[in-house]
Each structure stands twice: as C-alpha cells, then as structure tokens.
C-alpha cells in the first residue's frame, strides 16, 4: 500500500475517532477540542475530536475581543479606554491559530495538506478514478487567497449585523468539508436538524457536488482554488525547513515527475510552488533521483538509489 495513503487514512481516522458520534448523532464535547488540527476538519463532524483552524479563527475574529465593550461601534467605540482597545485587539486576533499554522508551515510547508488532511485524502482517492485528466486555468488558483482574506478574515471582522454580531462566513457559505462532514451526517442522524434545512443548505450542497464532480478530472481542485489553509501555508513552501531540491543541470525533462504530481504541477518549474503539497511523489518518480528531500529533522544521509538505466542523460524530453 502507498505509504502516504496509509498516513492520510490514519490521520483521518485519528482526527475523527469519536466513533460513538456516528451512531448517536452527537458531537464530541471533550477538552481535546481546545486544540486545532492543521488541516480542514469540521468540528461539527460527529466524529471530530479536534477543532478546525478555519472555524476557530473566524470565531475569534467575529468576537471582537473579550473586553467589556468588545464590538462597540461609532461613538461608543471612541469612548472605550485605550487599554481596553488594545486588549480587544489582542483577544480578537486568533493568535493560537495563527501561531499553530505558522509553526506548522515553518516546519513542513504544505506537507500537512498532502499527508494529513482528510479532505485532501478524499480528493486524491477520487482523482485515482479512471477519468480523463485536465489542468484548470492557473488563475483559479488565486481563488483560495481571496477566500482567506475576504471570507475568513474581513467578513467576520466587519460584516456585523444590527445586534453587533458577525458570522463565520467561510463556514456558512463555502466550506464543502463542513457540508460533507457536518451538513450531511448530522441532519441524517438528527430529524430536528433535518427539518431546519433550507436554501443555504441547498447552496452548500451544490458547491460540494461541484467540487466532488471536479475531483476525478482535476487534481485537488478544492486545495488549489478554495482552501484557506492552503492559502495560508502556501508561502511557507519557499522557506520551510522541509524542502525539496532539484539538480536542474542533470534533469532531462522526461516528465515523470509531472505525470505523478497530485497537485497537477510541473515540479521542474519550481519545487517551491505554492500549490505543492509535499506528497514526494515526484521524488519517488524521478528515474535519476534528482529531486531530494531536505530537512534538519531527517535521519543521517543516505546513499542515493542507483539511477534507472533506461532513463539516462540521453533520454529525450517528453515535451
């Protein structure tokens, strides 16, 4: 069995190991939910043991802080003492979530997307189905940054209703992981919730269906276009401790790495690409072993496996 697939399956199980929830329809309410996983995993999944960083960040941002006058606007906000304003800014910023994702990104870049994310596993599995494969326009990849800035940060901060409350806009209007893990499972197990489903649910279901339909044809469409975690971690690929390097001088551009890339990239164009999920398939596929994995926390140097004879320096480029 593919090692990465095994790790993904174990991670998916461990983050959703509250098995009782899948029978009773009740979510886990223990203290493990203080912590977030560095992947997209809805905390309203009946099995979820930990919190989702995207949901958690929106909750903190929409709170406006924990001071007495948090969320005050207009003249009331002007009258708030400076000390309380500073406190509200500090407690209204998701420091724990930002810190967690920064630490994870600095260590691994987007490797958690490739090795631990349950929604990534779903995308990888569906992409293995024998359908024709396509590459989507590169511009769509910018979508995830828009979702991060507008729906995860700006809307919970500024889109406040008349009673002074704002909502986790990304969870409410977009998140297909939430629809899949919470939206389908919880109402299926709870008739009371089922009666409340309406237009918003229909919209989210349609969005989920769109992504599911795209997955067999396009590599990781959700990660590339709409995942805020992917958007946050993407810049870390350039500086993370876990790195991939390519001996470009010896590369014969055979295209083997491009064929296996789960993110639909061409690794020869740059191994630090923001959408690389560090699955290492390119390093395994390179017949000359020119793609190397580097990190301070890896074991002692190993000798490179002998290059495959059939793919020597004289092999013609495929493109």
């Amino acid at each position, binding site marked *: 069995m593919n090692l990465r697939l095994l790790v993904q399956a174990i991670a998916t199980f461990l983050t959703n190991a509250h098995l009782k929830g899948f029978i009773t329809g009740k979510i886990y309410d223990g203290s493990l939910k*203080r912590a977030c996983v560095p992947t997209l995993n809805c905390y309203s999944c009946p099995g979820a043991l930990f919190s989702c960083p995207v*949901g958690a960040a929106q909750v903190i941002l929409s709170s406006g802080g924990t001071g007495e006058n948090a969320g005050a606007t207009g003249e009331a906000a002007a009258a708030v003492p400076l000390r309380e304003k500073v406190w509200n800014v500090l407690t209204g910023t998701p420091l724990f979530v930002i810190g967690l994702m920064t*630490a994870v990104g600095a260590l691994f870049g987007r490797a958690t997307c490739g090795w631990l994310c349950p929604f990534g596993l779903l995308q990888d599995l569906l992409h293995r189905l024998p359908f024709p494969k396509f590459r989507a326009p590169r511009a769509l990849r910018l979508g995830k940054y828009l979702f991060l800035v507008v729906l995860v940060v700006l809307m919970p901060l500024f889109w406040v209703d008349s009673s002074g409350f704002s909502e986790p806009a990304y969870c409410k209007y977009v998140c297909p992981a939430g629809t899949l893990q919470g939206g389908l499972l919880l109402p299926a197990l709870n008739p009371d919730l089922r009666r409340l489903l309406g237009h918003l649910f229909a919209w989210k279901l349609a969005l989920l269906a769109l992504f599911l339909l795209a997955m067999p044809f396009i590599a990781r469409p959700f990660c590339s276009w709409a995942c805020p975690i992917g958007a946050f971690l993407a810049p870390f690929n350039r*500086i993370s401790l876990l790195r991939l390097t390519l001996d470009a001088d010896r590369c014969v551009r055979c295209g083997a790495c491009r064929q296996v890339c789960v993110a639909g990239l061409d690794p020869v164009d740059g191994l630090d690409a923001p959408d690389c999920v560090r699955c290492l398939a390119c390093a395994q596929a390179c017949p000359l*072993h020119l793609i190397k994995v580097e990190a301070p926390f890896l074991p002692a140097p*190993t000798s490179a496996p002998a290059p495959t004879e059939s793919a020597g320096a004289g092999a013609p480029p495929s493109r």
Partner: protein
Amino acid sequence: MEPTPLPVVIRPTAGSRLAWGLFVLGLALMGLGIWFGETARILDKATQVCLQCIGIG
C-alpha cells in the same frame, strides 16, 4: 546483504534562520493565545453544533 534503497533521497540540512525564527514565533503566538483564553473560547464554540457549518445559518 544489500540495503534496501529508500524510495526518495533525503539530506539533512541546518534549515534557514527565517524558518527557525518563524517556528519559534509560531510557538510564542500559540502560548499567547492560550494565555489570553483563546483555546477556551474555541472549545466553547466547537462543542456546540455549528449551524453555519451544516448550512442552516
């Protein structure tokens, strides 16, 4: 006996100072978040059914 070659070539490095700095900064921010009670507020939200996540509103 011939050792089984690893599937990929790995190479330990020192890592960049920037990455180490960001890692430490991340840990510090996590500590601050815990100190300010953020994880308790996350727990409050995450232990209730999230109607927005489901698509109820």
